[in-house]
């Protein structure tokens, strides 16, 4: 076993363990913090797989922004210290949904990528005489992959995100309208 493999396994165990903590801890903010550990460990896995760009983007976006926003929302809404909020009666259903998603993803990924080996030591093509050796997982290769092979998926994702953005604006606007109406009604009575 190479050291890289050992690190990878350790990170994987950390990812899974902290993911379990995310869903099992009764404390909402602690759950969010465990989520940080999970996402950070996933970024570590990416690093071990030499996907530096993806790894740091993972940290930047998920750890640095998404979970911070999550914490922001948690703090703004109900008392975050209350332990009652996070428990749910739908645990079995949630467990079923989680495991089936995991199963589907695992099957898809293994069948899709089985047998593909990336040779990290070879230096595939030299773009021009003095170009730096292209590395697997660096910005250039990721960019090329996204804008050649995966361009449709990329565009679809963009549209979905745009739709979510507009949806968020609409939802928040509607709440404000209703508040105003309520205020007017409450003041009039």
């Amino acid at each position, binding site marked *: 076993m190479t050291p890289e493999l050992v690190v990878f396994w350790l990170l994987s165990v950390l990812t899974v363990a902290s993911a379990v903590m995310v869903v099992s801890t009764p404390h909402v903010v602690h759950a969010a913090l465990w989520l940080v550990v999970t996402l950070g460990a996933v970024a570590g896995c990416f690093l071990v797989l030499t996907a530096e760009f993806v790894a740091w983007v993972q940290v930047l976006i998920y750890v640095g922004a998404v979970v911070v926003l999550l914490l922001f929302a948690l*703090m703004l809404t109900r*008392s975050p*210290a*209350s332990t009652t909020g996070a428990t749910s009666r739908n645990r079995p259903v949630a467990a079923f949904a989680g495991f089936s998603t995991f199963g589907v993803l695992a099957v898809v990924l293994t069948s899709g990528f089985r047998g593909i080996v990336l040779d990290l030591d070879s230096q595939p093509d030299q773009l021009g005489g003095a170009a730096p050796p292209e590395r697997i997982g660096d910005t250039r290769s990721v960019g090329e992959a996204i804008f050649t092979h995966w361009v449709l998926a990329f565009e679809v994702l963009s549209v979905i995100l745009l739709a979510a953005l507009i949806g968020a604006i609409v939802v928040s606007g509607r*709440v404000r309208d209703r*508040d105003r109406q309520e205020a007017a009604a409450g003041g009039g009575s």
Partner: protein
Amino acid sequence: MSETPATERAADLRAVTVGIGDGAAGFGHERGGGVDLATQDMVLNIGPQHPATHGVLRLRLTLDGERIVTCEPIVGYMHRGVEKLFEVRDYRQIIVLANRHDWLSAFGNELGVVMAVERMLGMEVPVRAIWIRTLLAELNRVLNHLMFMGSYPIELGAITPIFYAFRERETIQQVMEEVSGGRMHYMFNRVGGLKEDLPAGWLGRTSAAVAAVRSRLPQIEDLVFGNEIFRARTVGVGVLSPELIHAYGVSGPIARASGVDLDLRRDDPYLAYQELLDDGVLRIVTRSAGDCFARFDVLLEQVKVSLDVADACLTRLHELPQGPVNVRLPKILKAPEGSTYAWTENPLGINGYYLVSRGEKTPWRLKLRTASFNNISVLPQLLEGRVVADMVAILGSMFFVVGDVDK
């Protein structure tokens, strides 16, 4: 046995008081979009020990996020029962108590008391004393306003202007200290005049101090007034309508910034103000916007006017012949039976003393009407619906002294 319930209660307490639930626990206020998106209001205590409150004013704010839902000023942490104490002090001793409630305008406070007593006694004050009193009252006004011109930017986060303001304060405070011996509580007024005459050469030094302050005032002006962020923080923020001012009895620079043109120096002239007004030296500064910026602007203009008035007083004092500055008083000073109300335009607003005497050497009742109390009372009207950052801007622009609120 008795341990267990206590620890349980502590545990319960912890569960509800951590984080945003702090103080909001049990408040029961929920707003926002329905049950799932409900946010809890939280209660924030500004003060009694908070850098923005200059002492021990306490504001109990209910916040929805950063927005203030309700505001309740809680006063009285510095209540010293001064009105009751007045009743067991003779008229000479009262002055020392009376100059303390608004510690930034001690001279103006003394003035009201001695004027009330003089009026009851029907006493004529020597003309020289009148002019010296006017001069010192205006210098005291400059000191007071400079204090707020320095402290207000600090509340908005600018840390430098206060040092500029304090340099000017120091210049004037030196001449005040030279004449009275005090830097804050001058105790220079006496019933019937002043404690003693001016030191030799003091008039010249005061002229120099006034000129120095006037020449350096543009520095503060440039530092604060031209600032884009300062304007953004103050223009249109905390607009006080003339109706609210009438309803709450707000007075002083705050009222004049909203266009309520009331200044006792002109409307019920005392000391030498009538003459200064006729000479055109004393101008009443008003603004119509009524926002924080206008209030601050009035302060700056008043400093300039007060410096002009001080100069006019100095010229006049140069011309006046030497003469007495006080009246010889009997050993036991008794105000005749009756009552009077003496009000003056203190730097912060109307400062009034209602004196009721039963012919004894102490007053039967001396009611104190202070400017800051009324000015602070209007706060809830201004704060509701604003954000916390505006709270500081508005609170600072109400120019209050906690001692003046709590008496």
